[in-house]
């Protein structure tokens, strides 16, 4: 039987598909507003997590370097934006100037983290990156003395929203379209990157570093590039986070956040862009759905809240990481190569 949606015989159908998805994404916020305006905001955060997960996927999924301190780059991007567009230093640069700066600074930090850790084996690397994330957070917390840069644990308030001449992105709805546009661009970049020379070189490094080097791949530069590119996406997302929240503090960049992004990548399927997006969407909406269902449910059953939704969320994350690794090590939507690699079991 011929498939109903046969793009091979009718190539124009693929454009119909794109149009349908585009239409769905365009009207999504209006549908969400029917449930409640907060859901648009939640969707915006979900898109930010997609950006983060895609960035981490470059490091973890493409190049196979487990980074447990990824949120540090998000923090760098967020703080760069906050410092250049808030009353903290009285600077109010436009967003299209700051976002590239933030991404570049984050990339620099990525290279800084990458340089000393290039020779490390995977598990050591994971711990060092974790330590790096903590170092950044400790600095953000303490760089309020002797010169007040980050304002310490109080964080920075009054951050400007994005604005163009005569137009301000000041509602969740406006942000949604901006974020959507950016995430689509980032997805296209990622898809192109994966099949590029660089992407294939990363894959070779991930599979077997020594063999990759023997094939003439400059492993040092490419690993640095993976760190820097992954970090720059994190920095970009951080800048937008800053603008959406209008307030940031070191509290937003704790270890748990790094682990959450890692969970998204792992759960969705390391190395597969669509899998990673699925992971990010699932893990950003499930906690919200839990928040709306668990509390009333517990109150109905026990008359009070026994377990906070936040705790259930974290327990589910932990459980998801363990169960995915045990039963579906390549993730929900595995990438073909990764699947093969994770399922072979050398003795």
């Amino acid at each position, binding site marked *: 039987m011929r498939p109903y949606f046969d793009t091979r015989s009718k190539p124009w159908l693929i454009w119909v598909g794109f149009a349908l998805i585009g239409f769905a994404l365009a009207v999504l916020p209006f549908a969400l507003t029917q449930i409640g305006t907060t859901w648009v905001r939640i969707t915006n955060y979900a898109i930010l997590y997609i950006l983060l997960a895609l960035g981490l996927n470059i490091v973890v999924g493409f190049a196979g370097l487990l980074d*447990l301190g990824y949120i540090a780059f998000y923090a760098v991007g967020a703080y760069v934006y906050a410092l250049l567009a808030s009353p903290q230093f009285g600077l109010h640069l436009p967003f299209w100037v700051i976002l590239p700066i933030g991404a570049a600074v984050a990339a620099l930090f990525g290279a800084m983290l990458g340089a000393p850790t290039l020779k490390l084996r995977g598990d050591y690397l994971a711990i060092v990156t974790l330590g*790096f994330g903590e*170092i950044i957070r400790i600095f953000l917390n303490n760089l309020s003395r002797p010169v007040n840069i980050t304002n310490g644990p109080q964080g920075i308030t009054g951050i400007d929203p994005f604005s163009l001449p005569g137009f301000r992105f000041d509602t969740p709805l406006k942000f949604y379209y901006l974020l959507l546009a950016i995430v689509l661009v980032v997805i296209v970049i990622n898809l192109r990157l994966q099949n590029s020379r660089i992407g294939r070189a990363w894959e070779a490094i991930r599979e077997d570093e020594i063999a990759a080097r023997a094939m003439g791949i400059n492993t040092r530069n490419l690993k640095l590039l993976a760190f820097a590119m992954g970090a720059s996406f994190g920095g970009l997302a951080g800048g937008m986070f800053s603008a959406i929240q209008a307030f940031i503090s070191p509290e937003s960049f704790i270890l748990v956040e790094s682990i959450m992004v890692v969970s998204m990548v792992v759960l969705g399927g390391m190395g597969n862009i669509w899998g990673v997006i699925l992971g990010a969407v699932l893990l950003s909406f499930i906690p919200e759905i839990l928040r709306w269902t668990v509390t009333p449910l517990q109150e109905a059953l026990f008359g009070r809240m026994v377990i906070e939704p936040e*705790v259930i969320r974290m327990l589910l994350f932990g459980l998801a990481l363990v169960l995915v690794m*045990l039963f579906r090590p390549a993730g929900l939507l595995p990438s073909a190569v990764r699947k093969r690699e994770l399922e072979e079991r050398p003795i």
Partner: protein
Amino acid sequence: MDTFLQQLVNGLTAGSVYAVVALGYTMVYGIIQLINFAHGEVVMIGAMVAFTVINLLVPTGLPPLAIVLIGAGCAVPVCMLVGYGMERLAYRPLRHAPRLAPLITAIGVSIILQHLALMIWSRNILAFPQIIPSRTYFIGGAAITTVQIAILAICLGLMASLAILVYRTPLGTAMRATAQNAQVAGLMGIDVNRIIAVTFIIGAGLGAVAGVLFGTYYGLAQYTMGSVLGLKAFSAAVLGGIGNIPGAMLGGVLLGLVEALGAGYIGDFTDLCQWGLPLQACEGGGHFILFGSNYQDVFAFIVLILVLVFRPQGLLGERVGDRA
């Protein structure tokens, strides 16, 4: 000079606790090359269980020392059970999987344990009851409390008994054989699975004691205490050479010293006024301190990164091959 001696005492005390925790990391790593990410949480659970038991027993009017001992005595088996449980459920099925897989389950286990602890003991910082009357002695200008002496003695005792266990008993021989080559050890009639489980159990037991000591020393416990403590102990294990038991002891003590001395002197050292810079803040004996002792937690990570860059095998470790 007084600061130096004082920080030396503090550093030795904290360092010996790190050393005991580091042993848990290094034993497990030595035997199955896994960074047991959740080891820090085991330490936390040890502290929490002891906290609960001690609080329950305080009204009974038992002698304080007995209460603390019973507290530790309850924490150790609980932690051993946790350690065995995670080995059996989360690590054993992945023993032949690629390296990243068990590391990720380890992170998962760590999150689960942390939040179970949150559910049981709440998210508050719990004040450890200070029931043992602490006396302070002065040695050459440095104060040392009875608690510190006890911690040093207990840690030394634990390390010595572990060394005897590993190097002088049949069980220890079996553990070392498994670490060297699990397959050949199996052919020699060693039940490899049992030995690995025992390693986890011993490591967890040491972790439990360390948790109790840590709680008594700093007087507090919280569900998040495991992650930073675990990271520091891991750094200590790497510093000494991961997989190497004497290395973990040395690394722990050294890390404690670096941290204490670093925290004690970084403020003076980064005081720009001391360097004679003509700053406004310096007038009239003021200070312009770039980095104060609040950066204490950074030292462990910096040590970790430096060691991994310049001597990845650690101080006492042997050179390990790249990803084989």
